[in-house]
């Protein structure tokens, strides 16, 4: 039986993309994620810019995760300058990242992916679901409030600079968030149960996943790069293992990880983080995970929403503990003179590892740079995932395959606006 399944324009994802699947004689002939988001050439216009501009510019790659871009960039720049911020600054940056994880995850869980499990076209298409969506809006608002306090505004915050922040908040300002955080944390524990009880597909598969891994904390800004198949390397080595390659069933360029003589696709994001760093979670979150009935490691990417729920609870809890321990530092940043050098830094964006490499000249201007967003890394894995699903559902009607494929794509929370950095665009 021959069929063509085509989605022209994916909805409830960030950015513009589609998918085309051709099935011929009971076999998948081709499967291709089409990315038609227009490229913006960030790496090109960053060339020749002063390092301070880099932090303002890279945020504009993505309106949903600007903090991630600023974090990878600022740490790479600090590494080149040979400076390391003081503990309160590190903590505030972690708090900022918590705000972004909360805002981005809540958006995805409640507004974008959630409606899939209720057969709805949007978060506001059903009265009953609207009540669920309101929880998400409360989470999102609180995440945005954290970003507002630390960064001036939630989208494209302005406060991060090499060595620290332009200005840091008083403890009192942060403490004012505590009552809401406590309430939201309780609610987020319930939302782990809600997510665990959603009707998932049974698309279980073997996969390779990669995330940062840190000796004492759940990874955000620091760590080495680890995978479930034994990879454990320093950040700066990662680009040696990373490779773009071509696959038969697709015409878009894929990102993979080199192993001996072969290259294979891998996944980054909340599932990868949770599977690899469960040990680093505080006991009370671990308990919530084990009580949810979902067992780790997660082998079905459709459960992304569950991993996000766990990370939201973790982010609320961490925010509270950072605020409790916070003492305002004497100076908001440590100064540094620009110098020439090259550095790679990776942080954990809401959607997974975000890799930045900068090469600066002696005055602090960019000579060249590389930016590899999480979705670029996941595209290949998404295709593999859908391939695996269809393989087991070849006899199903085209409409079913279309709907389910769209759901699989959505469960990765792809950010196509970011991903245009790596893929070849269709004409």
């Amino acid at each position, binding site marked *: 039986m021959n069929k063509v399944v085509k989605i022209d324009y994916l*909805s*409830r994802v*960030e950015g513009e993309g589609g998918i085309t699947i051709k099935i011929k004689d009971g076999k998948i002939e081709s499967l291709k994620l089409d990315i038609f988001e227009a490229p913006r*050439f960030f790496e*090109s216009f960053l060339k020749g810019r002063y390092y301070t501009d880099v932090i303002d510019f890279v945020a504009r790659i993505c309106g949903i995760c600007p903090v991630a871009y600023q974090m990878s960039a600022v740490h790479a720049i600090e590494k080149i300058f040979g400076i390391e911020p003081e503990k309160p600054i590190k903590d505030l940056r972690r708090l900022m990242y918590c705000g972004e994880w909360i805002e981005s995850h809540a*958006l995805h869980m409640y507004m974008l992916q959630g409606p899939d499990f209720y057969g709805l076209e949007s978060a506001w298409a059903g009265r009953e679901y609207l009540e669920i969506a309101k929880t998400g809006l409360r989470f999102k608002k609180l995440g945005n409030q954290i970003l507002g306090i630390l960064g*001036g*505004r939630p989208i494209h915050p302005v406060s991060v600079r090499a060595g620290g922040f332009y200005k840091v908040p008083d403890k009192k300002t942060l403490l004012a968030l505590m009552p809401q955080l406590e309430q939201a944390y309780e609610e987020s524990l319930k939302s782990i149960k809600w997510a665990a009880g959603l009707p998932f597909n049974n698309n279980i598969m073997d996969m390779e996943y990669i995330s940062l891994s840190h000796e004492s904390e759940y990874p955000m800004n620091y760590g080495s790069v680890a995978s479930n198949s034994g990879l454990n390397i320093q950040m700066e080595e990662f680009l040696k293992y990373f490779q773009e390659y071509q696959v038969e069933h697709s015409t878009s360029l894929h990102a993979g990880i080199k192993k001996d003589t072969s290259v294979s696709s891998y996944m980054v994001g909340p599932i990868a983080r949770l599977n690899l760093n469960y040990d680093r979670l505080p006991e009370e979150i671990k308990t919530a995970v084990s009580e949810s009935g979902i067992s780790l490691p997660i082998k079905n990417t459709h459960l992304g929403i569950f991993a996000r729920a766990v990370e939201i609870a973790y982010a609320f809890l961490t925010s509270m503990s950072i605020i409790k321990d916070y003492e305002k530092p004497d100076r908001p940043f440590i100064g540094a003179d620009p110098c020439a050098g090259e550095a790679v830094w990776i942080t954990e964006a809401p959607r997974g590892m975000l890799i930045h490499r900068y090469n600066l000249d002696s005055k602090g201007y960019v000579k060249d740079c590389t930016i590899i967003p999480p979705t670029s890394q996941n595209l290949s894995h998404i295709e593999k995932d859908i391939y695996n699903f269809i393989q087991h559902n070849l006899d199903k009607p085209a409409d079913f395959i279309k709907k389910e494929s769209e759901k699989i794509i959505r469960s990765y929370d792809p950010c196509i606006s970011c991903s245009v950095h790596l893929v*070849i*665009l269709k004409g």
Partner: protein
Amino acid sequence: MKKPRVGIFKLTSCDGCQLSILNMEDELLSIIDLFDIAYFREATDRPLKGEFDISLVEGSISTDWQKKEIINIRWRSRTLITIGACATSGGLQALRNWSSLEGYKKYVYQSPEAINALSTSTPISDHVYVDYELWGCPISTHALSETLVSLILDRKPVIRKYSVCMDCKKKGIPCLLVSKGEPCLGPITLTGCGAICPSLEKPCYGCFGPKENGNIESLLRMFKNMGITQQECIMLLDKMNTYTYRKVRIEQSS
């Protein structure tokens, strides 16, 4: 009363301005009550159909198909509003306007011939008539709700036209330009943000674009007297509103 049909469209952009709509957590439910969100790819599956009372457009024009797309959107829309620096001013990606596209493509992509992009990124108003322009990277949600409410009430939206400096004065923020000699674009930049950067002791980098009749040349002269080179001055203007700052500067000098 029939709810106004609203369409939200995306061209070349970062999604941040559309996200601002979803970030109006407290107002979102009333927006949904007051308006029929008939097209919003980022949040609903509803297909593109029919005409719109209000269209909000995010993003600049940077590919061939977008030139056709924007004409299509204009045909379908009674009122067209651009949201953000990309749509209103070409965005950060308009920096390519002053370089060679071929060089740009080669640097980012392995197979540059496969990339379909225009050599420029331009604001929507260069292509079709625009009823209202909202500035900012990202827009202020306050300006957006003011505009939407005005359209419902059939009155003209009140969007303030003064500079970021006025916000500093109102809020009693010490001036970075005067007291610290930092190159702040506040005097020539449109209000809207409430002086976010100066309140965090960072000079304004002009994300809301030029204010009407702001004297760009005299501010740059002041910067030069502070020891900032000509090249650095240009880079200060060449950010998310590069296209408009450069345009206004040429207009002012002629």
